[in-house]
């Protein structure tokens, strides 16, 4: 995993400024969060990252079931989310299109940021986007 470490402020990034082009609506009270690890955790080696979602359901990519989406884990991502495009897919943007709710993550030693973003059937962010707080962990 390539790391692009820099200064960053928890919870301040990735909230898009323009309205979603795809614009799949979602419940207003939906809440996306990382169950584990916790912000500030020091972790040895690989770990299971567990995804939490309230007031919405997890489904598979491609499924247009109402009020449901699938998880994407952003690792060390600095760029703003562009809601007019599907969520990127590369080594820093992991997709869980089979409806996974946890993942084994292996990162090189050092500080890393993690954030969840929920995607719709076509991997677009919802309108408004549903993103978790950014957490920072240190892999030792």
């Amino acid at each position: 995993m390539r790391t692009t470490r820099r200064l960053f402020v928890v919870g301040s990034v990735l909230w898009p400024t323009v309205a979603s082009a795809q614009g799949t609506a979602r419940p207003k009270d939906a809440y996306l969060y990382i169950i584990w690890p916790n912000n500030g955790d020091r972790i040895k080696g690989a770990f299971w990252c567990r995804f939490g979602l309230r007031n919405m359901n997890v489904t598979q990519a491609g499924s247009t079931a109402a009020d449901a989406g699938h998880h994407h884990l952003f690792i060390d991502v600095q760029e703003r989310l562009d809601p007019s495009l599907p969520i990127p897919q590369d080594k820093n943007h992991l997709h869980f299109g089979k409806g996974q709710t946890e993942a084994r993550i292996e990162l090189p030693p050092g500080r890393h940021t993690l954030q969840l973003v929920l995607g719709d059937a076509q991997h677009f962010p919802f309108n408004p986007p549903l993103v978790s707080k950014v957490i920072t962990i240190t892999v030792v």
Partner: protein
Amino acid sequence: MVQPKGQSRRATILAAHIVDFSTMMSTDEPATTALITKHHQEVIDPAIREHKGRLAKDTGNGFLAEFDSPLEAVRCAVDIQQSMIERNSDSSLRTVHRIGIDLGAIIAGPNDVSGHGADAAMRLQGFAGPGDICISSAVYELVKNKLDARFQSLGEKQIENVTQPVRVYRVVPDFAATVKAVRPESRAPRRLTAALISIGVGLVVAAGASGLAWILFSKQQRDRQATAPTLAAADTHNVTVALPPPASSVAVPTSPPAVAVPPPLPPVAAAPPAPPVVLEQKPLAKGPPPPPKASQVDMPVYVPPTPSAERAATAVQPPIAAPAKAAVIEPEMISLRGGAFKMGSDDDPSERPIHVVAIKPFSIGKFPVSVGEWKQCVAAKACADLGSSNVGPSDAKMPMANLSWRDAKQYVAWLSDATKHNYRLPSEAEWEYAARGGTQTRFWWGNEFIENMADCNGCEKAYDPYRPTMIGSFKPNPFGIYDMSSLVNEWVEDCWHKNYAGAPADGAAWETGDCGQRVLRGGAWRNNSNYVRPSNRDRYDATVRYFTHGFRVAQ
């Protein structure tokens, strides 16, 4: 593994019953007994073990198995039914199971299981057709979003000794990736097309004709379903809930009748406002040998790029005659002699260790499969029609994208069948060998990145985040192959491994490991220049589509 205990507990029970068991026994008892023992040894018992279950009881005409996880129980049932189809195809004595799965309280002994859960599973089995799997709503709720399958509601059923009726679902596995199962069927819709056209059903608007087509199509679906799971489930790895229950336990295509009516001219099928389909490229003067199988490349010789204008479609109409037998345009292939090369790099942990691989002679597509080429497969009803989107390829000359690995496998199966040439996906090693073009540098043109050599985020002045460029717009590599480093991420055959420890050295696809995820090679237009490196590798769930994923074929 489930530990047998003598007390009541909750578990998932799989009940299987052999169809026509008594007839089989009265026909040839010793052969039937031997056959069933063999099935147990070779298919059923290993499948139960693999899914962490326990054979709880052999009932003679079937069996009961116990699982901790409903998901594993359903997967086990799918495995067994799928394996039995294959075994029955080369056996004179067919063994077909009905399977029911439920969860509830059971009392398990060493060689027996009883209790409500077991009873209910046996009752559910009775609702299943031959070769089918029926599950209760309790099981359905726990597995519905976690399987590559659709679920057809059979409605509410009254189960003996249960006061409330129980909703029963039939599992419709997505066998699309099983090339064996898909191939024989892939031509059926075209036969139907030809038949319909030949009897003069030219005016598909006529309601009568639509009805006839629908009846025939439905029948076709039923026939196909009776023998093997089919393309009906091919492009729906999402969950379809509560289809209207049909007369019998038969898979009904989810598409409305209108879709079943074959278009009179396949190439015209649902053409978006895009320029001509590749079919129209056929009369294009290609110069020397028409669709040449290959230009043999012996050495890393630099081949001057073909100007992309030369590939532009000429506005020649396709021949109108005999539309039902429209020839399939085969992809242009580059034949490679093969040989040893160093695969991998030290740029990323997933690319280590660098190891020597000996590649056998093979051919690979000169370009990624284009939108136009994909449409031929759609017209033949062998590939999914993915419609159009405001992101991704928008022109027949762009690479086809938004494909899962399974979609790519379906395409090569169709192309092989339609052309009688053996097309396949390249192995990961073959892909890197071809992408390197005989070089061992970071990029095929050297160690330094150069602008305007590939379509990627930050690679060129004309970058469009919404869609790729046309195929063949950039310089080919020294083997004369285009677009391996950019445009779309390309699926290869291999299952994902996080690095090359233990990788095969003979260039074959690596098919052990995490096969739920398959390898993607090369960068897409949305990726950065790191993905342009021929050694770069990534992976994705094999059944999931994403708008930058495409592929090229190999032979």
